[in-house]
């Protein structure tokens, strides 16, 4: 029997598998036993009520999807009065993803959701910073640090900061968030992309561009997970294109302490449990007693990272 538990900072999880924000909701509890997950992460909420983006909000691409859902949000009171009580019936740790257009907004929503029953806060900082030209907070080390520091002030709960892959140097942003007080990093959100219907000549998403997710982004985000895990001491949670036990193990070897599964659940509602079972079986086969031993266990010490050279 492999010990499947992992620690994400102070938070101990029964296993490393959890949903990615925005790809999980109560509906899934009707189809799978969500108590078996390491944690649940809810879709990002904001203080303001929001309707989200225009349709079409998704498009299918080769081995992946584009989405421009945006963040339809029912606000904090709805979360406190409806969502939270719903999840209280489950023993699994609840991670609340929050977002805001300003630093003060982030601090205020983090404070508002720091209530009993919430195990950790995930700050989705891949959203436009309205105080700085609308560039996402996660796009610059400085703005990532500023918002992380404000969040750190605002909540005593474990603070996970979710980074965007749409940057040139994700390790620099990771270090900035760590120094500003993040307890863990989630690497990463979706990759900005687009597709055009050649017959209608229209973008396949109503908002022209959107986020790419699914198997297609795995090699990119494994690389970023590896870079971030080398750059920081806090745990990194890998997220991008994970659809099988092998994918999850690959992320852990790259340095992830836990992983989030998003798009795969849309195609296979039982994906997370299949991944968990598959990892356990794989560990048993390989004689691995603690899944945590896989974290960062890539064999790269004898290799030299060739200067990126295309």
């Amino acid at each position, binding site marked *: 029997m492999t010990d499947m538990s992992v620690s994400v900072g102070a938070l101990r999880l029964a296993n490393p598998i959890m949903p990615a924000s925005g790809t999980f909701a*109560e509906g899934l509890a009707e189809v799978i036993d969500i108590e078996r997950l390491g944690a649940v992460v809810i879709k990002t909420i904001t203080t303001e009520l929001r309707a989200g983006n225009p349709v079409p909000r998704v498009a299918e691409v080769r081995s992946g999807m584009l989405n421009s859902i945006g963040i339809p949000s029912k606000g904090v009171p709805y979360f406190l009065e409806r969502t939270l009580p719903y999840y209280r019936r489950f023993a699994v740790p609840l991670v609340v993803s929050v977002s805001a257009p300003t630093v003060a907004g982030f601090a205020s929503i983090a404070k508002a959701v720091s209530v009993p029953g919430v195990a950790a806060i995930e700050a989705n900082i891949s959203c436009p910073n309205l105080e700085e030209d609308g560039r996402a907070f996660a796009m610059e080390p400085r703005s990532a640090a500023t918002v992380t520091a404000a969040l750190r002030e605002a909540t005593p709960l474990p603070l996970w900061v979710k980074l965007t892959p749409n940057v040139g140097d994700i390790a620099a942003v990771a270090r900035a968030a760590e120094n500003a007080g993040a307890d863990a990093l989630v690497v990463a959100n979706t990759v900005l992309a687009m597709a055009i219907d050649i017959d209608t000549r229209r973008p396949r998403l109503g908002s022209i561009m959107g986020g790419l997710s699914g198997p297609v982004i795995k090699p990119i985000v494994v690389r970023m997970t590896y870079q971030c895990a080398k750059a920081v001491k806090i745990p990194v949670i890998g997220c991008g294109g994970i659809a099988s036990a092998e994918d999850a193990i690959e992320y852990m070897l790259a340095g992830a302490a836990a992983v989030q599964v998003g798009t795969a659940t849309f195609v296979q509602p039982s994906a997370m449990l299949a991944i968990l079972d598959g990892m356990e079986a794989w560990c048993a086969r390989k004689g691995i007693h603690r899944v945590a031993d896989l974290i960062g266990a890539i064999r790269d010490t004898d290799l030299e990272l060739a200067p990126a050279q295309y």
Partner: protein
Amino acid sequence: MKPPPESSVVVPDSAQPADLLSRVISNDWVNARYKHLVVAAPPQAAQARPGQFFHLLCPDAGGEHPFFRRPMSCYGASPRQGTVEFLYKVAGTGTRSLASLVPGATLPMLGPLGHGFSLEPAWRTIVVVGRGVGLATLAPLAEAAAAAGIAVQAVFSARDRDSVMSVERFEASGARVTVVLDSDGSSDPAKVEALLRRLHVQGMADAFFTCGSTRLLVLLQRLGRELGVPGQVALEQQMACGLGMCFCCVRPFREDDEVVNRRVCWDGPVFDIQEAMP
């Protein structure tokens, strides 16, 4: 627009959905563009109610690489025979790969999903108006109505005689079917309106049901409002998860003078006809 309504904690009105493995019994062409798929499925699946749908994992076949599942209305479900039926139009990547399924092949399907049609015991005759794939969704409704002792007046709109499907199926359940065609002009909105008004005058329109045509939806909304006839519509929208999680399948609805987004997969696919926005 206001944020989506509070329905996300609602329990569905039928069998618990599950990801089930079905086996293809037959998958035959009914005309040049539509196929009729019959699968053997576990008992839960066969408990699907009229208007509910399944989310089908189409095979990676014949050079087609569908990534998402594809939503398909349950065209028939027999708990006794353990079968579920679909009637689908071969359109793009997913349905083309579906069309390649041969008897014996396995087909993973998630469902039954969504909120189906509801029938009021007080109704004596309902009017069911459909076009194209809409008939797949409405057929089980006609059968359920018949079983509940409610008579069905069906109006099928189609391009031409060759595109008409499912008439026998509706008639077998006791429905009276009127076919209107683009090819002879009988599907003209004004003519269909006259037909519906006649049915209403004859007391044969306690409720309107529709699926498959925006033009028909608009007509039924107007008539329903004017005549005070309630109605339901089954809507479509592109889906990723089918379980209310991704919010990609939203459509706008009227709710107390406001416009709200609702998820077709979770809050529907059947909605109050007056709330729908075409």
